């Protein structure tokens, strides 16, 4: 009887230890993001966050999933508020009410993850490839802008796989916000549209 109990306990212990070595990771991004420091331009824009985008869960490989939906919606909302003076957030392009506005639909093209076991580097890395479909309120295509973002952990020391991927994903999301703020008005087609619509500030 005692031997059976010991065997059962040993098996249970072995299962716990082996499951602790599992290399799968389900990551939920919980970090809050800061608001952007920027003076928005006198431009109107409607941002289409589709339900798929708001609930997006990336599966860069069979063992990893990253719930990016709410985090990317929060981050991009902040960034767009820093870019445009009048901004509305809608779930579909048909819900847009603003006139003479840009209609921007962000989507995730791909998410990639690399771990120390893949690259033999001492870091975890996350790439998020966004696409911004930019149209006018009347439905004319302005551009389809590819926006890559990248994040990596400083090292992998004492980090669990989930925590490390979360840290790298947060840095990648912050990088996406930075890229958007830095480069959006530098997109030639957007700049040309602003010139045509006479929406540029005098300082530009």
């Amino acid at each position, binding site marked *: 009887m005692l031997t059976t109990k010991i065997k059962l306990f040993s098996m249970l212990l072995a299962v716990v230890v082996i499951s602790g070595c599992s290399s799968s990771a389900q990551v939920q991004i919980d970090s809050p993001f800061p608001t952007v*420091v920027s003076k928005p331009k006198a431009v109107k824009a409607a941002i289409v966050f589709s339900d798929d985008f708001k609930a997006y869960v990336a599966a860069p490989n069979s063992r990893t999933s990253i719930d990016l939906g709410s985090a990317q919606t929060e981050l991009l909302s902040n*960034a767009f508020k820093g870019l445009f003076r009048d901004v509305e957030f809608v779930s579909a392009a048909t819900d847009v009410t603003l006139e003479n506005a840009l209609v921007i639909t962000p989507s995730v093209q791909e998410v990639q993850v690399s771990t120390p076991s893949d690259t033999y580097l001492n870091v975890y890395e996350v790439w998020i490839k966004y696409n911004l479909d930019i149209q006018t309120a009347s439905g004319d295509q302005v551009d389809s802008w590819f926006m890559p973002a990248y994040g990596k952990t*400083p090292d992998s020391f004492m980090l669990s796989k989930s925590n490390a991927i979360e840290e790298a994903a947060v840095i990648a999301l*912050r*990088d996406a*916000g*930075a890229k958007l703020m830095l480069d959006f008005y530098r997109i030639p087609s957007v700049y040309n549209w602003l010139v045509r619509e006479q929406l540029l500030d005098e300082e530009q």
Partner: protein
Amino acid sequence: MNKLLALCFTTLLAGCGATTTIDEYRPNNQIMDIDSEQSVVILGRRDAGHYDTDREFIDCVAKKIKGADIDIFPEQQFVDAIYPWFEPRTAPKGLKRLTRLMQDPAIKQQIDRNGIRYLVWLDGSTETHDKGGSISCAIGPGGGGCFGFAQWEKSSIYEAIVWDLSNLTEKGRLRVDSTGTSYLLGVVAPIPLLTPVKNDACASLGTQLKQFFTLGETQ
């Protein structure tokens, strides 16, 4: 015999000291004044692909400077307060870009609101190289132990650049270069003889930076 062993051990320990060199450059001898309502922020450069200036080193330098009653503004709090202009992709690499940033009233307001007077950029890393020797450990029913000898060299190279945000000028540069060899002896039990290269670099850089900010008091 005991004296010989003690001498050998002392010699080995003495060999574990790091060699640290500091180069300092200041464009002029003006006093770097800072009042009690102003603070210094120490930021790490993180735009290089192959290394990040580690936060542990930045915290260490910040603690060394803090000893001189200088208020240190936390790095992450600063980066968040001014998001996204000090992210790895957007952080200014030179004074020209910083001047452009400070022309934005929203950014200038945030800097002023937080009382940031000086910005210290730290850039560098600690690397291990020249590994040699080998050590092996074994365990059996009768006991276990290690046998062998291993050594490795570490070098810490960091550069600090001080910017004055009130007049957008560079106030000085410091470069610390610290190297040292660590040993691991396997004599039944593994005996590590570690050289605190990074700590030495931090202490030297922190002390020197502290003198930058307290120069006015000592003159």
